[in-house]
């Protein structure tokens, strides 16, 4: 086989002759990856999520060097890191702040997707990989939260693992299987440690690669929601595209600097973030015999936790009404007799389940659905325009109502339950699910503005 003469010289040429993949991939993903030139500030959060992931992995490696995954030693070893390991407090606060920062940027990244229709065809796989990343991230955060072995670590894990006990028939055995003990104990801590430092990070990294590869195959969406690949120059480059490197690398460096100012302001000046990033009760060592007055998960889980708590016996009636309404709507909208029959049977089975099984079980189901409901979004949205810019103003208003419901559920989840709070969270739960469930109908209603053929771009 004749040797290929590289276009590069020197060391790069030497490498290129032996491993042409390197420069080919560099071009494909950076210097010749054409991104729409009209990205706005909402497009920084994907890059920031990667930055935070890197921070978590690097700080995590240093933490593992000194952390002891042992129920008798874990709490003290974390404080040992904070006090006796040189720079340990810095590493630990970066990791704890990074956990919250990860969710902040991922939530904003998802909101961008909702706003500009980034999940629409042909980006369904990009979106689904993203949803799986979000799911893994929640697992990663949950497993990691047990490790400091404080009161909130312990009782938070106890509450969440007990939820699996609500599953009919296999529940109680499943909960014991997960814990490896009858209560959260040393065995649980060790397996959560294994999940947190090996299993989930591997899955997470794989999914991030899949997310980016899938994105680079179809190309990025943009605030106008139009395809830049429709108009190309003679060389096949999108007219409205610009090479990711250097244009978006310098752009992202600037915004990363702004992000780091906020991030390190928390790390250096308010690492507990008022008890939201590091909960006060978690400075008390885990005590299986003393239940804290108020067990609340960390802020990023509270919207989903609120939905779980909203599912009371009384709420099952609301849920039944909602389910019947949905079924009626589907049956009236779809002419296929098979589908109609299946929906009718499914509804009856659900209704029977609502009033025979423990509402706690349905709370767990709803909490799971509230996380997974993002997955079918590409098929729920039937709007002729991707971006909110060209959709009726009330579509955006609906999205904002949903965002308010999400944030408000989050707030209520941090608070101890009250009758009024439960009532409000029940209404908000219906808003949360209604937004998605009714989307196939509302997303095609209203007057749409004409979508331009090319992106709108004003030179800086």
């Amino acid at each position: 086989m004749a040797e290929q003469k590289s276009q590069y010289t020197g060391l790069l040429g030497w490498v290129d002759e032996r491993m042409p993949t390197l420069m080919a991939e560099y071009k494909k993903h950076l210097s010749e990856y054409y991104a729409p030139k009209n990205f706005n500030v909402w497009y920084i959060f994907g890059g920031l999520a990667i930055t935070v992931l890197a921070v978590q992995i690097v700080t995590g490696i240093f933490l593992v060097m000194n952390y002891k995954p042992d129920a008798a030693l874990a709490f003290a070893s974390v404080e040992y890191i904070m006090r006796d390991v040189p720079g340990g407090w810095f590493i630990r606060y970066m990791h704890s702040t990074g956990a919250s920062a990860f969710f902040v940027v991922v939530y904003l990244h998802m909101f961008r997707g909702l706003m500009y229709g980034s999940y629409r065809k042909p980006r369904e796989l990009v979106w689904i990989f993203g949803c799986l990343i979000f799911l893994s991230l929640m697992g990663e955060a949950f497993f990691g939260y047990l490790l400091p072995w404080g009161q909130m670590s312990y009782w938070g894990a106890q509450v969440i693992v007990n939820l699996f006990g609500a599953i009919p028939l296999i529940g109680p055995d499943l909960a014991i299987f997960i814990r490896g003990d009858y209560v959260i104990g040393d065995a649980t801590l060790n397996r959560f440690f294994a999940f947190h430092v090996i299993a989930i990070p591997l899955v997470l990294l794989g999914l991030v690669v899949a997310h980016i590869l899938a994105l680079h195959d179809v190309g990025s969406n943009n605030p106008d929601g139009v395809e830049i690949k429709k108009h190309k120059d003679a060389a096949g480059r999108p007219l409205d595209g610009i090479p990711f490197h250097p244009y978006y690398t310098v752009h992202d460096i600037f915004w990363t600097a702004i992000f780091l100012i906020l991030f390190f302001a928390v790390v250096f000046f308010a690492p507990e973030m008022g008890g939201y990033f590091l909960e006060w009760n978690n400075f008390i060592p885990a005590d299986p015999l003393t239940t804290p007055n108020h067990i609340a998960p960390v802020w990023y889980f509270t919207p989903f936790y609120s939905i779980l708590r909203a599912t009371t016996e009384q709420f099952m009636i609301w849920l039944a009404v909602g389910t019947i309404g949905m079924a009626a709507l589907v049956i009236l909208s779809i002419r296929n007799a098979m589908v109609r029959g299946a929906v009718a049977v499914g509804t009856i089975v659900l209704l029977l389940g609502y009033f025979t099984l423990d509402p706690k079980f349905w709370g767990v189901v709803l909490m799971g659905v509230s996380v997974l409901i993002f997955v079918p979004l590409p098929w729920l949205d039937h709007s002729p325009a991707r971006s909110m810019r060209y959709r009726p103003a009330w579509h955006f208003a609906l999205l904002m109502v949903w965002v308010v419901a999400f944030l408000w559920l989050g707030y209520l989840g941090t608070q101890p339950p009250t009758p009024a709070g439960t009532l409000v969270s029940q209404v908000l739960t219906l808003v949360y699910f209604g937004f998605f469930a009714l989307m196939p109908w509302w997303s095609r209603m209203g007057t749409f503005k004409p979508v331009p053929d090319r992106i709108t771009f004003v030179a800086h």
Partner: protein
Amino acid sequence: MKMTFARLAAALAAVLVSGSVLASGAELQLDKWPAARAKDLAALQNGARLFANYCIGCHSASLVRWNRLQQIGLDDRQIKDFLIFGNQKVGDTIKIAAAPAQQKAWFGKTPPDLSVITRARTSFDYVGTDYLYTLLRGYYRDASSPTGWNNVAYPNIGMPHIFWEAQGPREATIEAIHAHKDEKTGHAGFVKTVTVFDQDGVATRSEPTTATVGREGMTYTFKPLDPARARQFDADAADLVAFLAFITDPSAGTRVRIGVWVMLFLGLFTIVAWRLNAVYWKNVK
């Protein structure tokens, strides 16, 4: 489906107006700890002295090494000569001889480790330093309690008043407001009782009167019989809390000092990155 829209609206309004009030029940009045002490080396050293003399009989601080106190201006010799009892080394953590099981038998509860106490006692409602400052100064004689002492910040506390000689005798007046339901009329409301504890802990309780405030709570006033001693103890308690805050988070000072430089660097870096970005994007039309 008994929910009416009116009830729903009322509930929404209630949550909007006062989410936190609904959440927390009876509120406790706490004194503000003078936070300037945290930066005062003399105060921290006085706190360390009080801590070694009064606290470590019962409380450990097993995550804190003695030589951590170098950070508040003490050298190993001073730590060894003035603070450590027994044969501990300066590199050891602050452990105690008493066995937790025995302590539980004596006090009803194992005295908590004090390593991270100001953080552990913080909540969404109050700061741990204020709580501990109030707790240390909140003791009053109560003849009805097993130790002869009671505390406004922690009613029926198991810990006796270690600093009673330092603080001197005091009289306490405690006003408590309770939710009350009249057995006969069924009328629900709030009643106020005023209890005066004299310096020997003998209580004089007033008849319950209808309270004007519609919320459970407790207020208190102390009358020191030796005001000069009580004032001096207030200063000592503030120093001790400053020391507890220091051992809870010894990196706090370093953290803020480095943080300022990090912010300055990132500020400059942001300006450079901003201009760099502008140069690249200048020709993008």
